[in-house]
């Protein structure tokens, strides 16, 4: 376990020094903040219009904002997750440090999990400030929205990120080129996103299966406050699967030509 922690520490250190991490977080926070502001404005305007027309406002304003905001978050996560993982293996292989790691008494699993946890930590840290906007809004709402709803939504966002980071981790371990890692991870994530596109609302078996596989569908449920066991299973199985694949991929580096 000491080795795993050593890898984790090293990765976190690299995130601090790498411009990519700062840029990703900055863009994420800027966009999320900007859109949050827009959503609040739009919802308030709508409420005002309804009031002026004499219609009693039964609108759940914070809820509306949250729904739109979580939708945006999921889209942002789709773009940002591949960026956080694209460099994980490319640099190591280019610098030859992969050889150092693989000739040390440390298992591939420790390497992969250490790196993964670091990317997850950064992701969580990136998500955290957005809670500030949400908290601010909640304090100024009357009546206050249910905390549990928001917490569940963020849990969903975390799980979504964890899944996409695992996918990105795997794709990144397959190539030495960061650009290819990004494109591949993004593509794979997108496929998992829209996999149920053609069968929305269908009741056929195939439809059900594809809907279950969609990585964003479960997140939508979370944002509505629904924690379904099947969703939890999905959100645990997917990262486990892709981390496993990453470990095999790293192991296969031993067989590639010098």
């Amino acid at each position: 376990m000491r080795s795993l922690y050593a890898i984790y520490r090293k990765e976190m250190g690299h995130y601090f020094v790498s411009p990519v991490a700062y840029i990703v977080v900055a863009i994420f926070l800027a966009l999320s903040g900007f859109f949050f502001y827009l959503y609040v404005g739009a919802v308030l305007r709508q409420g005002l219009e309804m009031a002026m027309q004499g219609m009693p406002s039964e609108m759940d304003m914070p809820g509306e904002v949250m729904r739109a905001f979580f939708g945006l978050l999921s889209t942002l996560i789709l773009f940002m997750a591949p960026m956080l993982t694209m460099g994980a293996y490319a640099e190591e292989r280019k610098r030859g440090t992969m050889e150092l790691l693989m000739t040390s008494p440390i298992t591939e699993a420790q390497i992969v999990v250490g790196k993964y946890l670091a990317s997850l930590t950064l992701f969580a840290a990136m998500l955290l400030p957005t809670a500030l906007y949400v908290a601010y809004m909640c304090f100024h709402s009357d009546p206050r929205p249910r905390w549990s709803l928001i917490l569940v939504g963020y849990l969903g966002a975390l799980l979504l990120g964890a899944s996409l980071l695992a996918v990105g981790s795997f794709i990144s371990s397959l190539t030495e080129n960061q650009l290819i890692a990004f494109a591949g991870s993004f593509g794979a994530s997108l496929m998992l996103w829209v996999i149920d596109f053609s069968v929305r609302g269908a009741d056929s078996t195939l439809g059900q299966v594809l809907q279950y596989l969609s990585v964003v569908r479960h997140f939508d449920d979370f944002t509505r406050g629904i924690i379904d066991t099947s969703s939890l299973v999905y959100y645990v199985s997917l990262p486990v699967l892709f981390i496993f694949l990453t470990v095999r991929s790293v192991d296969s580096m031993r067989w590639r030509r010098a």
Partner: protein
Amino acid sequence: MIEVEDLTKAYGSVTAVDHVSFTVNKGEILGFLGPNGAGKTTTMRILTGYMPATSGTARVAGFDVFEDSLEVRRHIGYLPEAPPLYPDMSVETYLDFVLRIKNAPAEKRRSSVTEALEKTNLVDKRKELIKRLSRGYKQRVGLAQALVHDPDVIILDEPTVGLDPKQIIEVRNLIKGLAGSHTIILSTHILPEVSMTCDRVVIINKGRIAAVDTPQNLTAQLKGKQKIHVDVQAPEKPLGELLTQVPGAGRVEVSPVRADGHLTATVEVLPGKDIRSQIAAGIVGKGWALYELRRISLSLEDIFLELTTDDATHAQSSN
């Protein structure tokens, strides 16, 4: 300490390592000599547990390199051809990281880092970022990393490449100082280095072992093949004929006339004969000017070239 038996590594149709066998005794320094692509790096990578062999076995400190890979790796320090450095770390941080992944005990980390820095003369670069170091210093950090956890076995792939002469001497002394308490394999192109630092040498070519012996034994073996070198002013063909006719002379090689009108030639001497006086008499007798006559003993370089070049002709080398 290290036993390699019938080790083979094939990549598809290319056999990088071909049924290689050798042993390294505890405390010994073994040199690995061979041209590029001979299989040195591949062999080292198999020993360090980086890649598996196609067939054959290798044991380090009693552990099989394939079956007990993790255990083997605990006993090994390895410096690959290009030092595996993290540019954004400081030297200290990097060595500390290496200690962690080598499972070194936490209490000893600080002192181990300091000791490694002292041994490689890096103490004043302790807090420096690796990316700011010159090539020579980077190489030293690579070396420090290979010995920081005090491993039983140290495997070095071209450890003195990129160093200036002073640093090369320091590194060689460092390596010699490590022998006895550590077992060392080092691969190199620099032939004098092998004679100076290694107890024994393995010469490897095209994946196969060409020779295994002490540097002294190898040079002694080929001492029979001495050569005489002459520098004269003489016509090419007659000179060649004269030299070939000297009793006790073997193969003669005459190089083309130089710009200054001189010709050089080498004569292989059959064992046990000293034909220098006859050559001198012959040349002077023909009225040719003799500028230089000396005896060349085959150096390790010649042996190396002899054993590794398919071509029968090879260049002259100095004593």
